[in-house]
């Protein structure tokens, strides 16, 4: 990791020197390893604060949104999942490819800094934080899919077992059981919108939940409003979620949000595919549900 970190810094320094970039998105080191956090370096001098380690789990592409209205040329470090986030933004016309210089890191899998900080916080209950993060244990794409320069050895997928096993378990429930399951999960929701804010596919300038004229989704912390929030969000993710798992990771109450996103990925592939979101970028390319074909299935309408 130290080698990767040094390499990133030296590439970024060169990019600043040659004027290829004005800003650089990566991570800033903290008082301990898991205190690493996203960082936007504005100058070569800022690079001193940068770091990359086994806790650099945040989706770096999310920070492109902070710069989408500018003209800066941007250097960015991406892991496999982050690179799919970049594809998401390119497809959604949120940022132009020519503004980006992408340094890909073949990702060995990350640990979750949120579990780590919880583990030493003294707050209970705690979960094991020494393993790879859940989102990494479900990862099929550890290697960047879009980059200008690549660091590290190609990694095998970290996913163990059957990809849609958890989805299948839900699918096998009766409708009533399934409703009960999600009702219970969504009842925990505190509507903090961390899942939305951490989501790279949530790149709308004004989110439907912030829209007040008319107000589409109620703000009550109730089963119906919570469910409305999650279902509307889910449908906006269909064929767009790049499965980085950040929503589930950042949820302060532990709602298994990736279950829903995985199901949608599966269905987008099955009904409108073969399709897998954000695996490559071709100019003008659109997500599966942004394209209409006459033979699109419509039995469910």
């Amino acid at each position, binding site marked *: 990791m130290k080698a990767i970190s040094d390499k990133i810094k030296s590439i970024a320094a060169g990019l600043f020197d040659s004027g290829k970039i004005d800003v650089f998105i990566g991570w800033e080191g903290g008082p301990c390893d898991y205190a690493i956090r996203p960082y*936007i370096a504005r100058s070569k001098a800022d690079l001193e604060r940068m770091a990359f380690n086994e806790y650099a789990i945040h989706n770096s592409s999310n920070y492109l949104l902070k710069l989408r209205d500018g003209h800066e040329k941007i250097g960015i470090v991406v892991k496999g999942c982050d690179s799919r986030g970049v594809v998401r933004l390119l497809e959604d016309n949120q940022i132009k490819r020519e503004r980006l210089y992408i340094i890909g890191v073949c990702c060995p899998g990350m640990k979750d800094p949120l579990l780590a*900080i919880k583990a030493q916080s*003294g707050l209970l209950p705690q*979960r094991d934080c020494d393993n790879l993060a859940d989102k990494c244990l479900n990862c099929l794409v550890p290697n960047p899919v879009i980059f200008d320069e690549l660091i590290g050895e190609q990694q095998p997928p970290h996913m163990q077992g059957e990809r849609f096993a958890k989805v299948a378990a839900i699918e096998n429930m009766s409708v009533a059981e399934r409703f009960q399951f999600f009702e219970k999960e969504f009842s925990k929701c505190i509507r903090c919108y*961390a899942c939305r*804010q*951490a989501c790279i596919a949530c790149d709308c300038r004004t989110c439907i939940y912030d829209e007040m004229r008319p107000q589409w989704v109620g703000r009550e912390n*109730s089963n119906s409003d919570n469910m409305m929030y999650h279902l509307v969000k889910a449908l906006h993710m269909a064929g767009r979620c790049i499965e980085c798992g950040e929503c589930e990771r950042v949820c302060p*109450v532990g709602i298994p949000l990736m279950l829903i996103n995985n199901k949608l990925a599966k269905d987008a592939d099955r009904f409108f595919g073969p399709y897998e979101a954000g695996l490559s970028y071709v100019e003008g390319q659109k997500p599966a549900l942004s394209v209409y074909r006459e033979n699109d299935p419509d039995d469910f309408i």
Partner: protein
Amino acid sequence: MKILAKDKVAELLEKIAQQAEVYVPMAIEQGSGFYPWTEDNKNQPLLLDALNVYNSPKYILFPQTERMYDLKQQGQDLSIDQTHEDSSPRVIFGVRACDARALRSLDDVFLTRGFEDSFYKARRDNVTVIGNACYAPGANCFCEAMGVDLTEPEADVILRDAGNDGYIWESKTETGDKLTRAVAEFLNDKETKAPEAKSFQTQVDYDGVAEKLKGMFEHPLWEKMAEPCVNCGACTYICPSCHCFDIQVKMWGDSGYRFRCWDSCMYAEYSAEAGGGNPRPSGVERFRNRFLHKLEFFSERYGYSLCTGCGRCTIVCPAGVRITDIIKAIKEVDSSVGL
């Protein structure tokens, strides 16, 4: 002194629960918080020995969604049928000093400065708070730096964990005395000693920060500090003292109710005006407002910081924002730079 033996805690809770709803720190699945002591919950692990729980007792006095009154519209007619002040008796058991301080800040907000909020007051007047003194601050704790005495939670009764001897039971208020009389059968007289408080692992110096911030509204530091923040509301909702709310309505046809619900200054919609303007248009202004409220504005208004040093925001922040770093940065920076 009065002692509550540890093996009597469940019985004591049982007794109190006959008269009031009792909230205790508990773990339920992956989460923890102050949950009602009910038949369903009794088997869950009680977390009196843990440093603290994720969800503070804030919601007991200030629920995330609180129905205020029922509305009915008929033609041009409009009526308010019923208001929903909730004055049922409640006991919150095992509150740490940071969270007790947060309750005091809610009291100051909702009950002073011109208006008494009747919905909050109805709940507050009927709540007894049993504190749980802290002697071993955790890795993210810094309550002492924010002016909180960890061993003296501002509560009606204070419990002090004296190990095998049980909890020392100290009544601090008339409300506490009343409760003490009601549970006298579970308290023994015995002399023992409360432990010595260990020192804090996180050192922060908040002295002078509120005053210094007065001249730092336009400081370039805000932009830098706000950079990792993704502007979700996790910190505000998990915070024991954040109290901003929205007033909303739920109508089905001609009838419904007006309710209030937690809101977060991190959301763009929070300060968006009807005409389309927004005085805090970007994440930086919202981030700045939140931390200034915690560290400066509240103390100008009420005389103490709104941050109680519980450390929860740092623990849940998806992007690793640490309020202690912010305090340190403010303390160290040249406040005139960039102005």
